[in-house]
């Protein structure tokens, strides 16, 4: 079908290469090249998520992607799946409703740090408390990228953003600790560079019965621009060199500060709790 070159909306003839043959029926080739900035990690997550959905063992008709507002909200539009694009922060309640109405569905919420933790923060902790059987992927790029670089709940202390030009003075969220404390069944954190590990945890996420949270650290050129950290490549180099993989790390130590000297990755939590819905 998409082996022949397709003319996209931008007038570019696009042919997916041979190595993407396994996911060519999941990617909307006519929409490529996608709208994300050069240096954004979301394209990598799109590939991995499509591969994980393909190899999850669950039929593609049963998969649903729900996205909120933001750069990450565009992710559903590039997948040939049932994808819903809902209001800001309300992706999780929408997904819970889908799961209640039809428990056979495998509902995945993909959202940014601002979408899920700031505007939808209340929904996030209460879905985790109820342990609803949905999957949440939080793409953490430390900033509101699409709207021009306002600080988000995960912006490290001291970072300069549009709304904190002299340095941010609030403490950020520790996302794995928050998810664990609220009651999530499965909590992991990876970067877009740790692709094999991230892929494995995405596969695991579909199997887990309960609220699964995957935090994905992703570079953002808006964040690096505001903080004079160079290009997205420089942040990607930091994400390559600094992280330490420690599956048994104390969850209280997982804060990421502005210097990014200590980034701990791993599959932190996997436990069984009673599931409310689904």
């Amino acid at each position, binding site marked *: 079908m998409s082996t022949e070159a397709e003319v996209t909306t931008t007038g570019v003839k696009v042919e997916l290469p041979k190595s993407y043959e396994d996911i060519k029926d999941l990617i909307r080739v006519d929409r490529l090249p996608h709208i994300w900035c050069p240096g954004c990690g979301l*394209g990598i997550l799109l590939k991995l998520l499509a591969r994980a959905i393909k190899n999850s063992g669950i039929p593609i008709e049963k998969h649903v992607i729900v996205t909120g507002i933001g750069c990450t909200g565009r992710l559903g539009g590039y997948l040939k799946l049932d994808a819903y694009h809902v209001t800001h922060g309300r992706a999780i309640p929408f997904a819970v409703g889908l799961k209640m109405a039809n428990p056979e569905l495998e509902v995945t919420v993909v959202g940014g740090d601002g979408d899920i933790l700031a505007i939808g923060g209340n929904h996030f902790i209460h879905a985790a408390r109820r342990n609803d059987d949905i999957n949440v992927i939080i793409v953490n790029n430390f900033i509101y990228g699409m709207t021009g670089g306002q600080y988000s709940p995960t912006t490290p202390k001291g970072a300069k953003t549009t709304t904190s030009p002299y340095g941010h003075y609030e403490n950020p969220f520790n996302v794995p600790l928050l998810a664990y404390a609220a009651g999530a069944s499965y909590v992991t954190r990876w970067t877009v560079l740790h692709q094999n590990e991230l892929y494995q945890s995405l596969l695991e996420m579909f199997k887990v019965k309960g609220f699964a949270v995957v935090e994905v650290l992703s570079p953002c050129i808006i964040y690096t621009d505001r903080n004079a950290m160079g*290009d*997205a490549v420089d942040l990607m180099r930091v994400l390559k060199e600094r992280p330490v993989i420690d599956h048994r790390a104390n969850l209280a130590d997982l804060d990421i500060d502005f210097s990014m000297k200590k980034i701990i990755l791993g599959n932190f939590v996997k436990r069984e709790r009673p599931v409310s819905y689904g």
Partner: protein
Amino acid sequence: MVLAQQDEVWSMRRLVNLHKMKRPIGKVIVNPDLCKDCRFCIEFCPNNVLEESKDVNIKGYHYPVVRPGKELDCVACRMCEKVCPDFAITIVSEEYTTYDKYYGVSRHAHGG
């Protein structure tokens, strides 16, 4: 002193079947119109095979090309393919080279 001895030992040691050992040669295929010049592939290539082109694509971005003289250096590890967010780069590896042919016999046989 110890180091010198080790060097001698290593120069004597050589895999018996080295002339039979093969490694893949990767062929880099870039779709220039999808590239957005994020430089991830250039940065993360372990053999430093890629560089920015002098030309631009229809949107004005410089896309990756193979560095001149490094055509045989790609070992098809597919790292560039993995880190590319834009589906723009892919590696085809159908040919193989033997170590003797690529590195020269003397370098491996006599320790460089």
